[in-house]
Each structure stands twice: as C-alpha cells, then as structure tokens.
C-alpha cells in the first residue's frame, strides 16, 4: 500500500555511481600548471596544491590571504573600470558572485593566473606558465570535479579544507 518509489533510487545518491565529467581536449597532461588554489565564498582556502614553486616569500596562510585579497580587489577594480556599462556602483563595496564585470586571467612576465568564480562563490585559481593559452575550459573541468567528488560526498562538511 505504501510505496516509496523504486527501491533502486537510493543507490543513485552514492557519488561513485556517477561517471567522471569528461575532460576538455588539450588538458590531458597538466604539465604547465604550477599552483592551484580553491577558495570558498568566505575566503577559506579549501585546497592548495603546488607542482612547481621555487620562490616562496611568505608562509602558506599569509600567502593564501594575500591571494584572496588580490582577487577581491581585482574584482572590484574590474567592475569599476569596466568601460562598457554605465552603472558601476562604488569601489570597495563587496560584490556578489557574478555581479559586475569580472576577469578571467592576468599575465605577468613570470606567470599567468587563471581565475574562475562559480555562482556559489567558489573561486578557482590556477597559476601556469605565462605563455599558456586560454584555461577557462580547464577551470570549468576542475569545478566539475569539485562538484562531483567534493560537494556530492556525504562525508564532506562544507567550508572545511578538502581531504
């Protein structure tokens, strides 16, 4: 009399039942990546990985804080300087994810920083060699991996470092 739907529906919640998202073409090796940061909305560093980092000027927590601060200021800078929209708000007021004009990369003579902000405020930062091309698809792929294996993991408490 009381039917709870198909009994098999429970198994679909288990994360390993879903296939891994397909990687975009040209992202197989990842030999160019030097450092990866993942921040949540509040500025907590969820993940930090480095593959090639000969220079270390600060200790890890200070470095992560500085990186988050740089991104925060760059976000309000790009939203304010944006020449294509007339209504820009005030400088220094915190922006919601997706509000105002954002940026996706910047380049110096020694590295290139690629940036992706999800609608929930997760910030992905990938530092690569300065002469790598557009990495927006790679960052989307990493974000999909985060959704599949971190957000869908029942043992993961939101806002804590990823283990």
């Amino acid at each position, binding site marked *: 009399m009381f039917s709870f739907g198909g009994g098999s529906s429970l198994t679909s919640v288990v994360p390993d039942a879903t296939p891994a998202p397909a990687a975009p073409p040209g992202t197989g090796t990842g030999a160019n990546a030097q450092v990866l940061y993942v921040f949540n909305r509040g500025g907590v560093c969820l993940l930090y990985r480095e593959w090639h980092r000969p*220079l270390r000027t600060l200790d890890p927590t200070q470095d992560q804080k500085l990186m988050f601060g740089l991104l925060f200021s760059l976000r309000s800078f*790009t939203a304010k300087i944006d020449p*294509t929209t*007339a209504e820009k708000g005030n400088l220094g007021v915190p922006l919601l994810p997706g509000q105002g004009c954002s940026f996706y990369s910047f380049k110096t003579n020694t590295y290139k920083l690629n940036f992706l902000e999800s609608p929930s405020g997760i910030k992905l930062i990938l530092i690569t060699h300065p002469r790598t091309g557009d990495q927006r698809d790679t960052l989307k792929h990493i974000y999909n991996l985060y959704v599949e294996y971190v957000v869908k993991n029942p043992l993961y408490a939101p806002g804590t470092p990823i283990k």
Partner: protein
Amino acid sequence: MALAAIYSLFIINKSGGLIYYKDYGSAGRTDTNDSLRLASLWHSMHAISQQLSPTPGCEGIDLLQAHNFDLHCFQSLTGTKFFAVCETGAQNIETLLKVIYELYTDFVLKNPFYEMEMPIRCELFDLNLAQVIQKDRVTLLGR
C-alpha cells in the same frame, strides 16, 4: 559612440599617484576621485602580483583579461606605469604604450616647466598623444 580600440589611458607615477588620465569613450562617467582611486588600486595590485609569483624575477601584471575589456600595462624603468583599457583582443597595444612612453619622454620630461611626479599639463604632449590615438583609430578602421 566609442569607435576606438582604446577606452581610456592612465599614467601613474612611481608612488601610485595619477598624473595623467584621458577617456576615449567609456560608457558612464568616471569622476576624478574614482580615477585617482583606480590608479592607486592598480599600483598596489601590481606590487602584490609580484609578491605572489611562483618563480623569481616577476615585474608585475602586463595584461589583465576581463570579460568586457583588456587592460594592458607598461612599466618604465623608472617606475612610471602606463596602462590602457581596450576592447577585448585589441592588438598592438604594447607598441602603442611604448609610443606613448616616447611622447612622455620627449614632451613631458624635456619640458623645463614640468615638475617630476606631478600631474602632466603639457600642451605638446596632449597634441601629439591625440594624433597618435587618432592614427591608431584610422589604422583600426582601415583593416
């Protein structure tokens, strides 16, 4: 209506003060206070980006790619920074900034009435800069 590839030009001195600002058709108005704030904000972010470099020898941001524009920055050996906000994918802006740097050395630094690190008020610089930007626009339309 903005025709140019370049939207605006900023020149900041070595301590981050805005010494020259020219707008070439951005939407909306950026008032003087905001342009000063943007200039000093850029100066500090330029410095922070050097600290965060994973490899030694970093000289700061030279290209920032946003969804609606590109920002090209050129820093001279003396620490004066020239940066231009352009359309996305605009070409040859580095060369244009170097030409502007040349104009700066010729018509600002060689002007006996110019005080170092102070706002630029030099007629010849304005005139020649307008010509260079105009020429850039013509070549852009000719393509």
